[in-house]
C-alpha cells in the first residue's frame, strides 16, 4: 500500500508542527504550507490525497484556497478538511457548496484527526 500524501495548510507553526508529528507517526506523508499561495504551489508539484486547511490565514486564506483547489483540479475529488474555530453558521456556507468537504472543529485533537483520516481511507 502506497503512502497517502497529506497537504497541511496553517499559518500557526505550533499547529502544523504537532499535526505533522501525529500524521507522520500514523504513516502519512505530510507537506506543510503556511498559506493558500504556498499550498497551490505544492499542489502544482504533487496532488495530495487529502487537503487539510485552516480558514484564517495571512496571505490567501482557506475561504479562497479550498474552492480554488476544487476548480483548478476538477478531476481530482480529494477530501478536504477545513479547520476552524469559528462556529458561526455563515462560515460554513461556502464550504457546503464544495464536494467532499468536512469541518474539523478547533480545538483539534491530533488523535481524532488521525481516526477521521483512517475512516476516510477505509
Amino acid at each position, binding site marked *: 500500500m502506497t503512502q497517502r500524501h497529506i497537504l497541511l495548510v496553517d499559518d*500557526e507553526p505550533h499547529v502544523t508542527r*504537532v*499535526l505533522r508529528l*501525529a500524521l507522520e507517526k500514523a504513516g502519512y506523508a505530510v507537506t506543510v504550507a503556511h498559506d493558500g499561495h504556498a499550498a497551490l504551489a505544492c499542489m502544482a508539484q504533487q496532488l495530495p490525497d487529502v487537503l487539510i486547511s485552516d480558514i484564517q490565514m*495571512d*496571505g490567501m486564506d482557506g475561504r479562497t484556497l479550498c474552492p480554488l483547489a476544487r476548480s483548478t483540479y476538477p478531476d481530482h475529488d480529494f477530501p478536504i478538511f477545513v479547520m476552524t*474555530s469559528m462556529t458561526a453558521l455563515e462560515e460554513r456556507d461556502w464550504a457546503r457548496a464544495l464536494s467532499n468537504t468536512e469541518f474539523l472543529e478547533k*480545538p483539534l485533537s491530533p488523535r481524532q484527526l488521525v481516526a477521521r483520516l483512517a475512516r476516510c481511507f477505509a
Partner: protein
Amino acid sequence: MKLNRIGIALIAGALVVIALVVILLVHRQQSSRSADVRASGVSLVRALSRIPFKYLDSDSQGPSVLNTLFAYQNNGELAYAAILDANGRTLADVAGRGTFVPGAALPPEAATSFGQRTLPNGLIEFYGPLADRSAGQAFVRVGFHQPGYAVLARDVQFMALLALTMFLLVPLVYVVVKREMAPLDALGHQLRQIGDVGIAQQASANDVRELAGSLQAYLQFASQRIAQLERGSLNASADNQVLQYGSKKLTAALQSLPDGLLMLAPGGLVSFASDKVEPLLGVAVDAILEQPVDTWCRDPALRTLLARYAGNQRDTLHAHSVDFTPANVEGKYLSATVQPLTAAHGAMAFGTLVVLRDVTREQLARQAGNDFVAHVSHELKSPLNVIGMYAETLADADADDETLRVESLNVIQDEIERMNALVGNLLNVSKLETGSMSPERNRVRLDDLLRDAYEHALPRAEGKQLRVSLDLPRELEAVAIDKDLFRIALNNLLTNAIKYNRPGGSVLLAARNEDHEIVISVRDTGIGIAGADRERVFDKFYRVSERDAKVARGGHGLGLYLAAQIVELHHGRIALESEPGIGSTFSIHLKIAPAASGVVTL
C-alpha cells in the same frame, strides 16, 4: 360762559329736533287720514250706487239707507250723502249737522264713471251713477270733511312723552360728551394760554410745564381709551394669535427633535415631514409632502411597515419598529418606529406617526463589539488549541523522546503566558477605554523602574538565548508618571522585543536625557517591521503578518496599542525605527517634570 353757550345751543337744538319730529308725525298722520277718507268715500259711493233707489228714497216708508248710514257713522267725517236726478235735482239727501249739500253741478262723466272732486269749505266729494234707473238717470254724491289738524289732539299725550324723553336725553348726551372731551378742553385752554402769553413774549416755564402736564394727562387718558377699545378687538385676535403661537411652537419643537418625523394623514399622504427627514432618507421634504408613500419611498422595509398601517388592521393599534439602511443615503443605519396617531383613547385618529432615528453609531458600535468578541474568542481559542494539541502529543510521546517533551512543555508554558498577557491587557484596555484607569502621576526617578523592568525581562530572555542589557546615564532627570501604568507599557515593549527576536540576538533597554525630555528606548535585533506595518503597529488588534516566521509568536495585537495609549496618557509620544531583518527600536519620549512640583518618590 362757553359752557353755558353750549348748553343753550344744545337745548335749542333739542327743541328744533322735537318740532321737526312733531311736524313729520302730523304730516304723516294727516296723509294717512286723507287716504282713509278717500278709500272709504270710493267704497261708499260704489256701495250706494248698487242699492235700489227705493231704499235710498227718504220719502218712502221707514228710514232710508242714507239715514241709517248717517246714524251709523260717528266720527263726523261724513258731511252729506245725496241722490240727484239728471237735472241736478235732489231726490234724496241727508247731511250732517251744520252742513248742506253744495249745489255744484256734476261733471258730465259722472253719468258713466265714478269720480271725486274737492269742493270749497274743506269738502271732498265722491260721485257716481246710480245703477237702479227706476226713477230715471240718477247720481250718488257723498261728501266728506277734509281731515283737519284737529285730529292731532288725540296724540298730544304721546307727543308730549316723546318730547320729554328727547329733552332729557340731550343733557345726558351732553354730559357724556363733555366728560370725554374734558381733557382735550383743558389742553386747548392751556394752549390758548400759552398762545396768549407767547404773543406777549412772556412764556414762563410754569405754563409750559402745565401744558406738558395736561398734554401728558390727555395722552394718558386717550391711550387708556384706545387701550380699552383695542382690548375688545385684541381679545378676539389674541385668541387667534395664541392658537397660531401654539401651533408655531409645536412645529418648532418637532423640528428641533434630533429624530426625523413624518406624519401620514389617514388617507396615506404625508401631512408633515421635519427637516431632519431629508438627510436621513435622502429625499427632499418638499418632494414628499402631500404625496403617498409609494411615490417617494425607496426603502422596502419602511414601505412594508407603513403598508401595514394603511388598512384598519388590529396590529396597527401599536407601534412597530424596523431597522434598515436607507437606499438613498450611503453608510447610514436607520431605525423607523411607526405608530398610530390617536387622541381620546383611540377615539380620534389623525393618521400615522413615523419616527426616524439615525442608529449608525449604535450599529457600528454593536458591530465593533461583535468583532471584538469574535477577535478575542479567536485569540483565546488559538492558544487553547495549541495547548490541547501539545498536551495530547505529550501524552502520546514516547518516554524516551526527551526533545519532544521539552518542546511540548515550553510551548504549553508560552501559550499560557500568551493567554495570561491577553487577559491582562484586555482588562487594562477596557479600563483605559472606559476611563476608569486614571493615571496617578508622581515625580519618579526612572532608574528604579527601568531596573525593575530589566530584571523582570531577564529570565524570559535567557529562555530564548537572548542577551538583555540595560544602559542608564549616571543622572536621569525625574519625570511625572504613573509607575504602575508605565510598568505595563515597558513590559509590553520588552515582551515584544523578546518575542520577535532571533536566537542569539539581544535586547537593549536604555534611557537618556535630551532637551526637556527623557527618551527611553527598547532596541531588539529581531525580524524588524516593514514600512507598511510601521504605521499600524500601534492600532488595536493589529498584528504584523508572520508569513515567513519559522516559529509562531503568539501576539494578540493589544500590547503596542496599550503601550501607546499609556504613553499618550502621560502626554508623551512613542516612536518606532525599524529595518526588516535587522531589528526595531521603540522609543518613549517623556517631558521632564519641573523640579519644584510634585513629590519625588524613589
